[in-house]
């Protein structure tokens, strides 16, 4: 799975979690760019990502995420390992 495919699938996850059908993820996107991206939605999003991509994140991995680009890279690294 390359990063473009991950980004495409991630867009579906974000549209579902943040209930915004027109949402398209970008590498630079952060919680400040999306309505309702608060602590609760973050947990829901991370859980959805873990289930969708069949991966598991540690707290430290989640804490290091600065933007969606970091999340794409992390998923890519997990799937490659």
């Amino acid at each position, binding site marked *: 799975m390359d990063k473009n495919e991950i980004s495409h699938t991630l867009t579906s996850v974000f549209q579902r979690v943040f*209930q915004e059908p027109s949402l398209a993820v970008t590498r630079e996107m*952060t*919680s400040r760019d999306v309505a*309702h991206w*608060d*602590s*609760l939605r*973050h*947990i829901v999003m991370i859980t959805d990502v873990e289930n969708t991509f069949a991966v598991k994140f*540690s*707290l*430290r991995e*989640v*804490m290091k995420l*600065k933007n969606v680009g970091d999340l794409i890279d992390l998923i890519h690294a997990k799937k490659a390992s």
Partner: protein
Amino acid sequence: METSILSRFIDHAAQHADRSAVVVGERAYTYGDLSRLSAAIAAVLERQGVQRGDRVGFFAESTIHTYASILAILSRGAAYVPLRTDSPVARNREIVCDAGIRVVLYADAEHDARALAAAPDTNCHAVPTRDIAPNAGPLKAVSQSPADLCYLLFTSGSTGRPKGVPILYRSLSAFMATILESGRYEFTPRDRFLQMFDLTFDPSIFAYLVPLSVGASFYPLPRKGITYLEVADILETQEISVAMMVPSVIAYLKPYISELSLPHLRYSLFCGEALHHDTLSAWATCAPSAKIENLYGPTEATIVCLRYEWRHGEPPHPQGKGIVPIGTPMEGVQAFLRAEDGADDVGELCLIGDQVTASYWNNPSKTAEAFGTNEAGQRFYRTGDLCRRDRAGNVLYLGRIDNQVKIDGHRIELEDIEFHARAFDGGDRQVAAVVNAGEVGRHFIVLFVEGDDVDTRGLSEHLRTRLPGYMIPREIVPVSSFPLNSNGKIDRKALVTRRAVSGAAATA
């Protein structure tokens, strides 16, 4: 006796100017830095004509200038009034007008501050603090009378307008005396305090004023991302030793608690919402050395006024329904339960003491509803919290007697949301706001609106121009009719059940 609430801080700044006081992100500021910057801002306030008794607004940002602004305001004998950066101009304008604020300080919130100063009827100056250079000399403070106003916090009000809670120096001094002089807490200059609260929420005062009063340091959240992750990061990397938090944080962190190790945490304190025994038991495993307390206190009673010490490994309270007790009154506070039917073990929790304010700000009708005077002539505050007292004297929280809710520690009157929702679209529709079913940390607001032609997106945008971010409903659900209870009123419990069964029908 007149003195200053800042006397301890001023003494520490004089004796240990090079000691760390505040760490904001990567940058540490000493007591000297903070004192000199506060002095410079105090000089600006003096030039603006701010005098003892005036109310001064500031935007609640997470910068050294913001904390220096608070100290500067208090040093002038004035009262501070924090304004949320995520509140629309209309909401902050109501606060500025109600409090009679003439000066609003800001660090980076220039757009919000200028919009506020330009709003109708505000008659206030927006004063930037970011470029103020520190004074050569330290902060000096005027004496304050116990009867002087210290700060004015605005909470959600059921009539659609924010409700002002005035706290006098008498009340804050009583709280500080309990924390610093009761012997229960042994804080030292080596302690590192977490400051996770928005400055419009009064536990923030514990998190910055207590460390500054004992020569310790505090660590505000940078507020750049997801709160619970920032808290976890600071707790570990900065080796925090004193942390007051809302229970939602550890509820969010629950899946990761086994990865956390907090051997430096000496005091793990909770306040602001119900604390679940199971979540706390899991949390305690990562903080084995910490003294753990569940603290309780409405804004009207100055930060916290009841406490319960939770012992590692203790079982759930048999009458607690999974919730940790809120314990017994702190020194100088009296608590009693007021029951309609004369029962003495269940009733509305009422509070008496120097920590308890005597009224709301400019609001006689709400004051009459919430405050009373007992046979001994003492003022008491009716909290609206339904509680039980167990045989050991511990108070247990059972729920609210009205429609106030807590979300991530934020206190919200559901009628406040309904008032502004009703005003949208002509004002003819019935509306009802509820909180979804779920445990602490999983709560959000659902707004039900009558009709099958509801402009949910337009309504959501309307509410964003009236309410702070934490009060915006997550979901707006059109309904053809409302379920009614036996009194003929909208049955909120039935709506919560309906939401739980059907999920979201429409989204804000």
